[in-house]
C-alpha cells in the first residue's frame, strides 16, 4: 500500500529464532516460505504484511521423516523435493502427483507445502485436496508452546482462520501410512503450467469382494476453497471400482457444488467436468489394483 514502509524480512536459522522474530515483529507479521504467493499480493491488490519471517533457512522445516507408520513433512519442503521424496509410496501417490504436476518446474522449486496450506484465498492449490484425502495432520508452533504441541486435522486447520497468524508457524504436515491407494486428477486447460479448472483427490480402500470399504474424496479449484465430497464418499460405499458407475453417481451429486467463476473457466464448467474427473480417478485406482 502506498505510504507504508516496505516490510522487513528476518531470515532466522532455527525455529525458536523464527518464533521469537515473529513475536518481536508484532501484530500482522507473517511467515514467508517460497514467496510465490506472497510476492503476488500487489497483483491481487492485497497489502503486504507489515513484516515477514523467512522459513527457508531453517533446517528442521526442510526435512522429510519417513517412518513405517507415518511420514512427517517439514513445512518449508518444496513441491519439487516432495515429489521426489514421495515417489516410492503408493499410498501417498495423491500428494506426490499433486506436487509433481502443479504450476511449472521453477515454481515447484520455490513453492512449499506449508505455503500451499497457508495461502488462504488460493482456490486452485494442488496440495490441499491431496492432503484432505490423505487425512493429514498439521503441526503448529508458537512462542508459548513447543513445536508439535498443537496438532490439527487439515480440515479443522482450513476451517479455522485463527489457525495461522498470531505468531504461529506451521512446522510439519504428518501423514499416516494408511495402506490405501490414492490418486490426484486435475484438469488444466493447457496440458500443464496453468491453474487446474478442477481437481479430484481420492484415497479409497477396497475390501476382499472388490467393493469400496472406505473413501476420502476431496475437490479443489471448483469452489472458493477445497473441500471433502462427503456425499460422494457415502454414495460409493459398497460399490465396485467401476469408473462409469461411480462417475454417474458423481453426476447425480455434483449439483451440491456451486462453481466459482474465474479467468480459466466459468463456474458451471468446473462443476460439469467433476464427474469425468471422478471417473478418471476411479479408473486410475482400478488400473493400479
Amino acid at each position: 500500500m502506498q505510504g507504508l514502509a516496505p516490510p522487513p524480512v528476518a531470515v532466522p536459522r532455527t525455529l525458536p529464532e523464527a518464533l521469537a522474530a515473529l513475536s518481536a515483529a508484532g501484530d500482522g507479521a507473517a511467515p514467508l516460505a517460497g514467496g510465490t504467493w506472497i510476492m503476488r499480493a500487489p497483483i491481487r491488490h492485497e497489502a503486504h504484511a507489515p513484516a515477514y519471517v523467512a522459513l527457508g533457512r531453517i533446517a528442521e522445516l526442510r526435512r522429510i521423516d519417513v517412518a513405517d507408520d507415518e511420514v512427517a513433512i517439514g513445512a518449508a519442503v518444496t513441491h519439487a523435493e516432495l515429489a521426489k521424496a514421495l515417489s516410492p509410496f503408493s499410498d501417498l501417490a495423491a500428494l506426490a502427483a499433486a506436487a509433481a504436476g502443479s504450476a511449472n518446474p521453477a515454481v515447484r522449486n520455490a513453492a512449499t507445502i506449508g505455503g500451499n496450506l497457508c495461502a488462504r484465498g488460493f482456490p486452485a492449490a494442488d496440495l490441499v485436496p491431496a492432503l484432505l484425502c490423505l487425512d493429514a495432520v498439521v503441526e503448529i508452533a508458537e512462542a508459548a508452546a513447543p513445536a508439535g504441541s498443537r496438532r490439527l486435522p487439515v480440515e479443522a486447520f482450513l476451517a479455522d482462520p485463527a489457525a495461522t497468524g498470531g505468531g504461529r508457524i506451521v512446522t510439519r504436515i504428518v501423514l499416516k501410512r494408511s495402506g490405501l491407494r490414492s490418486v490426484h486428477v486435475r484438469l488444466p486447460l493447457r496440458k500443464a503450467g496453468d491453474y487446474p479448472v478442477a481437481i479430484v483427490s481420492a484415497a479409497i480402500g477396497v475390501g476382499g469382494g472388490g467393493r469400496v470399504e472406505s473413501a476420502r474424496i476431496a475437490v479443489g479449484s471448483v469452489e472458493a476453497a477445497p473441500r471433502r465430497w462427503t456425499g460422494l464418499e457415502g454414495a460409493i460405499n459398497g460399490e465396485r471400482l467401476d469408473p462409469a458407475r461411480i462417475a454417474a453417481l458423481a453426476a447425480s451429486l455434483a449439483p451440491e457444488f456451486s462453481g466459482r467463476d474465474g479467468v480459466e473457466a466459468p463456474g458451471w464448467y468446473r462443476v460439469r467436468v467433476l464427474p469425468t474427473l471422478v471417473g478418471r480417478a476411479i479408473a486410475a485406482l482400478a488400473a493400479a489394483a
Partner: protein
Amino acid sequence: MMQVTLLVNGEERRLSAEPLTPLLDVLRDTLHLTGAKPVCREGFCGACMVLLDGAPAVACLTPVALADGRSVETVEGLGTAETPSPVQRALEEHEAVQCGMCFPGMVVTLTHLTRPGNCAPTRDAVKAGLVGNLCRCTGYERIVDAALAVMEDGR
C-alpha cells in the same frame, strides 16, 4: 534496507535493497543485467528465469532476501557471441532463435535441463521441463531439437 551478497555469474556482488524486492529488479536495475525480462511478473511465462544454486527460479517471484548468499546464474553468464555455450550454439545451428522476449529464459532453462542428471533425453521430458517457458511465437519444436542435440553430444 537489507545488505545482500549474491554470487552473480561467479562474481561476488554486495548491495543493499528492500528485502522483498524481486531478484529480477535487483539484477536489472542495480546490477544492470537486463537479460532476464520482466514480462508477466506472475511466475507463468519464464522470461525472467535464472538459476539459483543451479536450479531454475523465476526471478520475478524471488524476494532478494531469499537469494542472499546464494549463487545466481543469468543468461549473461552463460556464453558470449565469440564463445557461445553448447546450448546457445545448438539453438543457432537448429535455427531455433526467435524474438528476444522469451528466449533468454529459454536459454537459462535449457542450460539446466542439459546439465547431466537433470532431464531424460526425450522429447516429452524436455517439453515437461519447458512448461514454465512460454513462447508466443509457438516455435517449440526446434528448441526441443536443439536441447536433444546438446544432450546427445554430452553423452
